[in-house]
């Protein structure tokens, strides 16, 4: 996928019925958007974290069903969550959950009709990122303190 650096390049070149060239604008798409901008990057991250959290829900169901099934199956689930991949997955899931929660609050704020000007958009966007880092660190601090 060739990257278009100038949005004005996102045009369709066609010909009129009399043969003259015409450049028509295309509706915005991935090639026209710079996905490294904070606005579009946070937007797609909200959708990605929502999807990842849906996968994480399967593990919550597993944990609950294993607890209901008995001690042996619960110990099996606990072994997985305590393993290397389990801990890495849970750490990632914690960050994903906090990001989607905070970005969701940002969406509810937008739904009230506020915060659409660019300075506020950048401010709330940075707040979501800093809040995600802070809450993820806090969650794992609580877990480590309980563990020790």
């Amino acid at each position, binding site marked *: 996928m060739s990257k278009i650096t100038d949005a004005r390049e996102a045009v369709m070149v066609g010909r009129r019925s009399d043969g003259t060239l015409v450049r028509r604008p295309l509706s915005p798409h991935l090639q026209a958007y710079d996905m490294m901008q904070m606005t579009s990057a946070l937007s797609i991250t909200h959708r990605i974290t929502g*999807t990842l959290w*849906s996968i994480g*829900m399967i593990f919550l*169901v597993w944990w609950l069903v294993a607890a*209901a099934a008995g001690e042996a199956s*619960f110990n099996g689930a606990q072994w997985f969550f*305590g393993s290397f991949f389990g801990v890495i997955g849970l750490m990632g899931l914690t960050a994903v959950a906090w990001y989607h929660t905070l970005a*969701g609050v940002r969406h509810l704020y937008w739904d009230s009709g506020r915060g659409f000007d660019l300075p506020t958009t950048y401010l709330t966007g940075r707040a979501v990122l800093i809040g995600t880092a802070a809450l993820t660190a806090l969650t794992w601090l*609580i877990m480590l303190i309980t563990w020790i």
Partner: protein
Amino acid sequence: MAAPTIRSLRSPLGRVRGLGAAKGGTHHWWLQRVTSVALLPLTIWLVFSLARMPDSTWQEATAWIGRPFNAVLLLAFLAAAFHHMAYGLQEVVEDYVRGELAKVGALLALKGACFLLWLSATLAVLRIAI
């Protein structure tokens, strides 16, 4: 009072309902917001609760799940979360899956999976709690 001039073939009732061929209005959008508001406190409670039980034994975990306060909030979280999840993933499928057959098939599979997962988790909580 003169009768209003009708300039279109749409019935007055159809114009009042204002839904047209879409047959649905803001129901999906609104419920996604309602469940998100419900999930906000429930998620904060669940994440911090789970963070405080990393090395819990089966006895400790089932005792925690079985406590009425925790069981009720867990059931509420599961209902809101799977509703929100099914609606959210539906939007993803509708945006990216091409072809009507594949789209409807993916949506049916998605809704079925969400329903079964919710039912399994809810049954597990109820079985421990009751």
